[in-house]
């Protein structure tokens, strides 16, 4: 029965990061049983260590030639490796920030880290998924971990409510996505992205089959749009961002975006790339709605997490604009934007966490009042982050917007570009609000920063990175361009 095992075990090493991570999860899980509550720090350090090693393993696979194994359900290409490395780095940073928050709010539990690791695993599966099945499973691994992560603060009413909303809406979205997948499967007869791509590109675009593909496409796009948090499938975003513990919000707002982008790329670009003209219109509408609603509603928020949620929606609109262009460079622009956004979002939520102290939940914009007086350094860091989010050069956020705009304009969507920049300006207003509270207001909030040095250090580096990469963005741009 040799043909039972159809994969070559020697090629398993390309799955090494995943295998290692899963093993690490199991080990930590078991180890955790024998740790008392005073040594839970160990879990944290083990988590960081396993993230680091996974990242290194993934890093080792960068520039590896493209490999598709497991009967075409797993792909290793440059994009996957780079995304994985980036995810690991982002998660490590997020965990550094989380530790402070968890300690301050008595949420420091090893399950938290295990769930994070599991969700990372799910995202790795998504990033490398090359069949509808693995993509779906990865998505569910991610989603289920996130539901649990949000609800982990079960003393907080908001957190449970957020988890519940996310859960229900997420389930609907998954179901819609599945429905779309079933249609694609039904018309193409395969779950494999590669075969779907072949089928679609061989299909006469005038035949009735395109109608079915189109029909399925609608559901797929909606499912993906939900994961990205694009209007009108954004409703979960503000509630979850606000309700979840800040460290979870930090996590949700950053790393899963890569996963969402990669599922988008795998299905819509790799799979249905030749149907581009069909889904780009949808994307255009969704992104315009996202930019508009995100920018405008964020203006009237007073809760900083909620405000950042709406700003995320607006950023997602920009990311989706990159996919409207239909060129590989355009997709690169979207990826660039995503990576940049993650870097900024990490720093922004990191700043919120930084201000948390024992039992004091920081989530109002006005909590930043007078920061520049008590900690000029971190006020400066926040300034950099906010201006970067607003897209002011020479900070990194500018280049991401620039890249997208350049692609949009070169594809001839000048009106949309004009629209986008106008809303970019409008959105600047609420970033300035934070700067206003930090710098311009005199009233004292008596902010003390008692985070550990590692958090302070990482946060500073995070923000400075935004500036430095902003000054020398060439490397990062070259990197994202090499992904396709």
């Amino acid at each position, binding site marked *: 029965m040799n043909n039972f095992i159809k994969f070559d075990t020697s090629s398993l090493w390309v799955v090494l990061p995943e295998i290692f991570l899963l093993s690490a999860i199991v080990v930590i899980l078991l180890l955790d049983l024998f740790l008392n509550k005073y040594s839970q720090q160990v879990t944290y350090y083990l988590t960081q260590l396993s993230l680091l090693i996974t990242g290194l393993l993934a890093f080792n696979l960068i520039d590896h030639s493209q490999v598709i194994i497991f009967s075409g359900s797993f792909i290793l290409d440059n994009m996957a490796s780079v995304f994985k490395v980036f995810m690991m780095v982002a998660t490590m940073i997020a965990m550094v920030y989380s530790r402070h928050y968890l300690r301050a709010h008595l949420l420091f539990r090893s399950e938290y880290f295990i769930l994070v690791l599991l969700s990372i695993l799910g995202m790795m599966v998504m990033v490398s998924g090359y069949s509808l099945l693995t993509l779906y499973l990865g998505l569910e691994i991610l989603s289920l971990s996130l539901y649990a992560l949000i609800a982990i603060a079960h003393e907080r009413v908001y957190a449970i409510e957020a988890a519940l909303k996310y859960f229900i*809406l997420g389930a609907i979205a998954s179901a819609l996505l599945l429905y779309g997948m079933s249609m694609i499967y039904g018309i193409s007869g395969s779950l494999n992205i590669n075969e779907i791509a072949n089928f679609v590109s061989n299909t006469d675009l005038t035949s009735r089959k395109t109608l079915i593909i*189109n029909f399925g496409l609608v559901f797929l796009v909606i499912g993906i749009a939900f994961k990205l948090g694009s209007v009108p499938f954004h409703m979960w975003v503000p509630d979850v961002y606000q309700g979840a513990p800040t460290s979870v919000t930090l996590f949700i707002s950053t790393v899963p975006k890569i996963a969402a982008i990669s599922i988008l790329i795998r299905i819509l670009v790799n799979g249905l790339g030749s149907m581009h003209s069909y889904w780009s219109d949808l994307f255009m509408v969704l992104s315009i709605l996202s930019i508009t609603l995100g920018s405008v509603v964020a203006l*009237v928020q007073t809760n900083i997490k909620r405000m950042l949620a709406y700003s995320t929606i607006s950023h997602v609109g920009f990311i989706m604009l990159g996919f409207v262009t239909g060129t590989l460079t355009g997709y690169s622009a979207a990826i660039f934007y995503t990576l940049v956004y993650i870097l900024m979002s990490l720093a922004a939520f990191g700043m919120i966490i930084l201000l948390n102290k024992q039992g004091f939940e920081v989530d109002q914009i006005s909590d930043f009042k007078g920061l520049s007086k008590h900690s000029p350094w971190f006020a400066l860091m926040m300034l950099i982050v906010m201006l970067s989010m607003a897209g002011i050069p020479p900070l990194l956020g500018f280049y991401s917007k620039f890249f997208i705009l350049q692609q949009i304009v070169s594809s001839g969507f000048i009106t949309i570009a004009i629209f986008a920049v106008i809303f970019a300006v409008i959105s600047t207003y609420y970033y300035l609000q934070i700067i206003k509270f930090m710098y311009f207001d005199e009233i004292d909030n008596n902010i003390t920063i008692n985070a550990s040095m590692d958090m302070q250090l990482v946060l500073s580096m995070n923000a400075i990175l935004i500036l430095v990469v902003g000054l020398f963005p060439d490397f990062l741009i070259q990197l994202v361009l090499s992904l396709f």
Partner: protein
Amino acid sequence: MEKIYLIIALSPLVGAVIAGFFGTMLGKTTTHTLTILGLLLSTVLSLYVFNYHVLERGEVFNQNLYTWIQINNLNISVGFLIDNLTAVMLVVVSFISLMVHIYTIGYMYNDVGYTKFFSYISLFTFSMFILIMSNNFMQLFFGWEAVGLVSYLLIGFWHHKERAVQANLKAFLVNRVGDFGFLLGISLVLVFSGSLDYTEVFLSLEKTIDQQLWGLDLITVICLLLFVGAMGKSAQVPLHVWLPGSMEGPTPISALIHAATMVTAGIFMVSRMSPMFELSDIALTVVMVVGAITALFMGLLGIVQNDIKKVVAYSTLSQLGYMTVALGVSAYSVAIFHLMTHAFFKALLFLVAGSVIVAMNHQQDIRKMGGLRKKMPITYWTGLIGTLALIGFPGFSGFYSKDMIIEAVYFSSLSYSSWVYVVVVVGVFVTSFYSLRMFFLVFHGKSRVDVHTAKHLHESVSSIIFPLIVLAIPSLMIGYLTIEFMLFNGWLDNAITVASSHISMAKLKYEFHSAASMIPHAIQTLPFWMMIGGIAIAWLFSIYKVQWANWVQKKYYRTNYVLESLYGFDRFNDLIFVNGVKKLGNFLYKVSDTSLIDKLLVNGSTKVILLVGKILRLIQTGYVYHYAFLMIFSLLIILTWVLFTGENPLFEL
């Protein structure tokens, strides 16, 4: 020669700089010595220049000093044009300025701003030199504005006096109205000639032929615009309103700036531009008519004034009108001639007035004077000379110049010149009436001086008396001495152009025999008897039957009212320009700028966006079934869109 001109121009500047920056350090005596020495140098050199150019018929000096700006072929430089006109002006300006400097020692000695004052008047002299020595329009404008600046500073010299600072602002602004036209004129000159240099401009005048602007010949427009500048500086109706106000400044500068030199800049300028004005009869007519109106109506105002300086000021306005009339009838040299004589006797009159004011302890109301003749004999006599010169008493310098103007008008062939002739003749009567009225009220009759002042009443100090005497001499004689050379022997010929069609000067020359013969001839003319009439009536009202004056005032109270309200110019300006502009500004600021643009458009759009945000956030109700419904509803919309409107729709709608 270039160095001499430079020294003439710069020595007052050096004096001004020293007095201005180091005056308080150096002390009063050093300061005034230095500035006066500087002026003396200028005066002496001016006389030398006068001698060289006018008497020895030296060559016209026209040279650029340095390039101000150079753009391709357009060169605007700072340079000197010294011809006979300039030479005459140099002498007049430097001489009177010197006298005023000396006079100031006595007049201002106790003022806190003594050194500053010297700095200013020296600076003024410098500016005036720049103006008259200029060889191009830019530099002319430079000097033009610079004298305006100094005038502004000096009118407001006593800055604690509200009326003084009000007056200097008014003076500057009214002058700016003139400058506005002047600058436009200059710009148009550049447009047609491509240069701002006098010589080049005058050479390219034929380019303007057949060019039209605003329905007039281009050259007419240019001349009128330039004349607007002259109207501002030389205080012609209706831009005269600043000059009476300027009397708020110290008396020496009233003499120097607002009588003798600066206000005549307009006259000088028009004479300088004579090649242009000669091309436009319309412009000349306007000049003449404006001058005539100023001459008569400003004179009339002099009758009802009781402030000694104001009377002199209105007489200045009137005399400036005469000069302008002369310009209008193409008798430029006559205008310059009158400018010169007027400079001497009007400076003298002002200084006399100043002397009286000092003696009266800064009392300026002539109704509270009287009988000063005995207390202040020198002042009296010099004042008498000045007055007689002003009214054109035969033999005095003013007689020659004014008579020439009247004659020139008489001979003019311009339309309306016959009306203007009537006006200027009547003007002679008016002039002599108000002049003598003032003179009688101040020096003759019973003393109405209050007791306290009367005790200290005495003749002024020597530094005041000296200039009076020195100025009295030319007031007496200069007309007699120079009329022939200046008007008919071509002193000014290399500076002034008169078109052959404008025959006044030619006829004058034909009529003229000698200076001496004019005196007997005058007695047979109407102007002489007008003057005598004026004197008589003045005597009647101010000495013989003072109560008649009051009776006339009451009887013709309407006329009196019109005169005392200065024809309502000030009220009109206040109402229309000052208040109007303020109202307009407030309207624009409040309605257009603040409400419309800022509140409505700028902040309004922000508010709209915020409002939209507030509305849109209502979508986020918090109910999960609403969220789900929105998702499904969006699904419906998208599905419908894709199925029915896509590129390959299921159903054609």
